[in-house]
């Protein structure tokens, strides 16, 4: 390797190792039985992986898998609804001129700056008043409007849909709604996949909202479930192996999503933000 490539490459590898090491450690720690966890060397694999797995499986009647399914539901349905709402709103904001357009856009975008804490607690109180706290809706509904996704959808719509196509459609007598789902949404699909992925990860990783909203542990997502497992294990390190194995299993789906959907993992914060 030529010398001028050595330093940047070394620095990049240092970053890669720093990022991979904790994941590698969890991978190895999950293979250790309770006894091995505190005695074996940190990076020596143990022999307890399948034991840990069946223990996790048996823990409170397999509640871990319940958490996994809940998380998939929250993230899958939530991201899908959020992407649809963002797509239609972004499209309307990009394509039509109408009274109040700027006001609506600025209001929606202003939501980006509102700290989630200001929202989560009153959302809980309000949902409790209508009897929706501690239900699946309590975690799904507050995440559907995502200001940043609406902004991205508007940028994508403006970039992907040529005005001439819409004019041609109108001359052919297609209605606006029909044009939206036959012409415009298909053209926005690559951008919408990106929006979906980022929302999916955001919901999958969310802790504060479900932590506040849910009391019933059969409705927990993985983050809250593993947290409560850790808290109840604070005085009994015997549960550490369960927490470690659960942590490993809970990040596998997202890592698979990362590796398979690589070309959609891009984000362009600047392109429209500063120019429009």
């Amino acid at each position, binding site marked *: 390797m030529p010398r001028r490539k050595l330093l940047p490459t070394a620095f*990049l590898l240092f970053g890669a190792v720093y990022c991979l090491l904790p994941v590698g450690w969890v991978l190895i720690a999950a293979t250790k039985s309770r006894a091995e966890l505190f005695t074996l060397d940190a*990076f020596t694999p143990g022999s307890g992986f399948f034991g840990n797995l069946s223990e996790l499986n048996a823990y409170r009647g397999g509640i871990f898998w319940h958490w996994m399914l809940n998380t998939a539901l929250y993230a899958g349905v939530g991201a899908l609804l959020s992407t649809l709402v963002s797509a239609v709103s972004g499209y309307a904001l990009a394509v039509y001129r109408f009274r109040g357009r700027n006001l*609506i856009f600025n209001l929606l975008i202003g939501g980006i700056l509102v700290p989630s804490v200001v929202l989560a607690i009153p959302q809980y109180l309000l949902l409790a008043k209508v009897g929706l706290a501690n239900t699946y809706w309590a975690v799904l509904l507050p995440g559907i409007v995502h200001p940043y996704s609406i902004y991205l959808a508007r940028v994508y719509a403006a970039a992907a849909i040529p005005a001439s196509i819409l*004019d041609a459609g109108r001359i052919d007598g297609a209605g606006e709604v029909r044009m939206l789902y036959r012409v415009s949404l298909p053209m926005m699909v690559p951008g919408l996949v990106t929006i979906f992925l980022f929302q999916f990860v955001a919901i999958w990783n969310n*802790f504060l909202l479900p932590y506040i909203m849910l009391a019933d542990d059969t409705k927990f997502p993985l983050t809250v479930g593993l947290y409560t497992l850790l808290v109840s294990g604070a005085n009994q390190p015997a549960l550490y192996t369960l927490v470690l194995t659960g942590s490993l299993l809970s990040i596998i789906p997202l890592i698979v999503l990362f590796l398979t959907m690589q070309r959609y993992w891009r984000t362009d914060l600047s392109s429209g933000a500063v120019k429009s």
Partner: protein
Amino acid sequence: MSTPAPRRDDRYGKGARAGRAGAVPYLFLAPAIVLFLLFFALPIGYTAYLSLRRTRVSGLGLGKGSRHEIFVGLDNYKDAITDAEFWRSWVRVLGYGTVVLTVMLGLALVFALILDSEAVRLARFGRISIFLPYAVPGVIASLMWGFLYLPSLSPIHQALHAVGVDDVNLLDPSILTFSLANIAVWGGTGFNMLVLYTALRATPRDYYEAARIDGASELQIAVRIKIPILLPSIVLTTIFSIIATMQVFTEPTTLRSISNTISSTWTPLMKVYRDAFVTGDLYSAAATSVIIAAISLIVSFGFLRAVRKRAFADEE
């Protein structure tokens, strides 16, 4: 047609001008607007309302009618800002945030520039690896690092032991800020790197060709050309990071379960949570969250104002 030439953003305008779109855009925006009113506007208004009220207990405080809500003006705010512990939590977050913002955004910038330069091998592997922690929820990341900080388990302690250093506790209050900052840096560098890298890839390559022909080194191109191009993206990632940092909650809350060195009010948001759900004082929690929101807005707008001229001058 005798209408004047349309402005640039009028290129879609025909349908709307002809009145054919009519209610259509409002129809398309209706779900977002309704949900925004219900889940953004209403909660914000409700927080503001609660922050001005308090429960008054009359008599012995027994029975149903003995507790009622009264209007107390700014009393809750007065209590919040005269609470010394609240300001100590801000000082802790300020220290934590300074470390996170400089290290995380610094690393993200350097990695993005390295990935975009011609002078690197294994770029794909590096990019995917550094982005990977983004797939790890904050709770799990804190859990992983928490275990890595535990003296009884940690390879860090084993390594320190091997070189003869023994009495380090990574969860000790004196270095807790750095241990917590490390979790945020680990989790956030990849995302910010990707944002900056995407912006760099979107820049036409011939911007750099002339400089390269003139014999500029990769480092000179990075500092003189690429960083100025990236400034708007750097500003936006900084603002998002500032907002996220001020609301830090998940990491210290998770670490609390394996360490007793973190108080229940270590960060401002943890105090809000404690007030609302542990001590049951929603009114103080509401006032405190309005203060947190106000401080975040002031800091992010202040930052934007301070850098605006420099960052966006050539974009107008």
